[in-house]
């Protein structure tokens, strides 16, 4: 295999929004071309819908559409499989099954890595696994991984720093969006909502931007039994920003398993204006607009009462 011509396709969905900084610089260091699928559009959604089971969550359907776009355009498609990132924690089972679902639906070559900390399969080992399948030497892989890891950490820090700055300087209403990054930043799921919010003269705080050390045990204020890593992070972020914000939007895709229960916990334990927006593939923008506008009205009224 001639490495110079190898292209890896990365679907712009699900874990892309979490790990892209890591992937991008890792492949960059190894000198491998990367092709991204475009931002989610209607065509991708339609393809995804026709390829997946009706009841799958919207994020997974969109992911299928992205994979479908990349098939036949690239040599490998990067599909991670993550079961467990920390001891005593888990991920949503969709991430367990991601590799096998794609492998059974598409007939394409997959570049796959597997993280399961409980069984000793760490992220480092996983990246060595993908490096090896691209015929790279051990040293090359480790250097690339270390550099990529640093870039990843730096960009995370930078984003957190920027957000703290915004929190301290902003005088507008601050609305916290509590949602998985693959919903918040998706062109079809999160972006219409963020646009509407910005029109209403608000500043948006993202729950998925945080410092890991700082939120470590904060989720216990809402629920101490939750064991999904990503939900834990969201709850921790929520508690972390709680005192500095004016309203909370829980953005969920239909029918998300973990969120269906953690939302219930959030709604009953929080005293700020809170709204749960559920997006499915049929959501229209008109209804959304009404809900967001009235929500902002509530936030304003509450603020007035508080200031008096």
């Amino acid at each position, binding site marked *: 295999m001639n490495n110079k011509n190898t292209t890896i396709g990365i679907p712009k969905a699900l874990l892309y929004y979490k790990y892209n900084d890591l992937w991008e610089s890792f492949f960059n260091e190894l000198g491998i071309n990367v092709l991204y699928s475009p931002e989610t559009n209607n065509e991708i959604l339609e393809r995804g819908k026709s390829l997946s089971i009706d*009841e799958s969550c919207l994020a997974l359907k969109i992911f299928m559409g992205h994979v479908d776009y990349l098939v036949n355009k690239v040599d490998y498609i990067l599909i991670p499989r993550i079961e467990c990132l920390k001891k005593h924690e888990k991920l949503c089972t969709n991430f367990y*099954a991601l590799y096998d679902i794609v492998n059974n639906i598409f007939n394409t070559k997959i570049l796959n890595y597997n993280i399961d900390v409980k069984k000793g399969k760490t992220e480092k080992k996983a990246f060595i696994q993908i490096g090896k399948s691209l015929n790279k030497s051990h040293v090359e892989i480790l250097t690339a991984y270390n550099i990529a890891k640093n870039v990843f950490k730096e960009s995370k820090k930078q984003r957190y720093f920027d957000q703290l700055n915004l929190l301290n300087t902003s005088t507008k209403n601050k609305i916290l969006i509590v949602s998985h990054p693959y919903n918040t930043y998706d062109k079809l799921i999160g972006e219409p909502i963020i646009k509407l919010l910005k029109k209403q003269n608000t500043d948006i705080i993202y729950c998925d931007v945080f410092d890991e050390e700082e939120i470590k045990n904060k989720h216990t204020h809402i629920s101490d039994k939750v064991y999904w890593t990503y939900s834990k992070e969201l709850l921790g972020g929520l508690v972390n920003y709680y005192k500095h914000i004016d309203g909370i939007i829980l953005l969920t895709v239909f029918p998300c398993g973990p969120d*269906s229960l953690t939302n219930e916990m959030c709604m009953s334990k929080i005293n700020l204006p809170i709204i749960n927006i559920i997006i499915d593939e049929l959501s229209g923008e008109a209804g959304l607009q009404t809900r967001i506008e009235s929500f902002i009205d509530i936030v304003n009224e509450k603020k007035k009462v508080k200031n008096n």
Partner: protein
Amino acid sequence: MKKKIISFPHMGNYYIPIKYLLTKLTNCDIMLSPPITKKTLELGSKYSPDFVCIPFKYNLGNYIESLENGANILMQCGGGCRYGYYAEVQQQILKGLGYNFEFYSLTENDKLAAISMYRMFKKINKKLSIVKFLYYTILTLKMISYMDKIDIYIRANIGFEEEEKSFENLLKEMHKDLESTKGFIHLRKTYIKYNKLFRKIKLNKPSNCLKIGIIGELYTCMEPFSNYFLEKNLAKMNVEISRRTNVTYLVIKKRFNTKKILRECGNYCKYTIGADGTDNVSEARMLAKKGYDGLIHTKPFGCTPEIGAMSILQKVSKKEKIPILYFTFDSHTSEEGIKTRLEAFYDMIKMRRENNE
């Protein structure tokens, strides 16, 4: 001090061993929640989050009915998928409704382990010794495994009984006897006695009868009310039924066979796909190899692991040439719709069999 009354949600016939265990380990009264009816489901759905899965709603309905009848200690299990998070949310919803009760979960950190179970029972009954706890837990597990063994025989043959209800009546007798189990030897004697009696029931079974396997999510598989008495309806159509999912399998066998199950999946699965998804894929492939005529896959609406498994099962169905009927159960599922689909499926596999012969 108020008398403590324990209650727990229903699942199939398993209330018998659970009641037995609780009576032996605690000094409280045990109250069975009223049998599941449509009202149970209505109550449960009313107070549940919007798109939580259906077992949550049934469990919540059971709890509310028990609390109304005076129970003040509730129990929940958990593990695998979001089932592990049921306990906390249900507790909170019930507290919000103004009930006064204690809530215990058999699982800790999403795992069912003997030590955490012992710790939990110790909270209810301070005098409980570990020896007594282990003795009765193992005895109960043995009882469950005997019940499951008998159930497997019943499932395969109930469609062919000569005299109607002979299996059902004998099963009721067995359950009554199990309630007064005295120890391992007594339990074994009961099992051997009923095993003989069940095998004596006269059958009218052709050697080439239709065979259907049931796979899917555990609750909708095992609680007959939640799947609209699927197995009973199938039995009326004179088919042999096989189902691997039972408590013995989930609690004991699965733990030691993870690698074997993954191997049985062949090329379809490289990794475990969460909860019981892998087991169902392997079971589907094994039953196809054994020459079963069709499979029925049951799941609650929105069950994430089973949806993952479905994408893979569709390929299994195509490659191994075995038809699979997918049922999704929700609080709005209509019984007639299920019957119609079941009948059509039966006709289809019957015709398929005739064409092949």
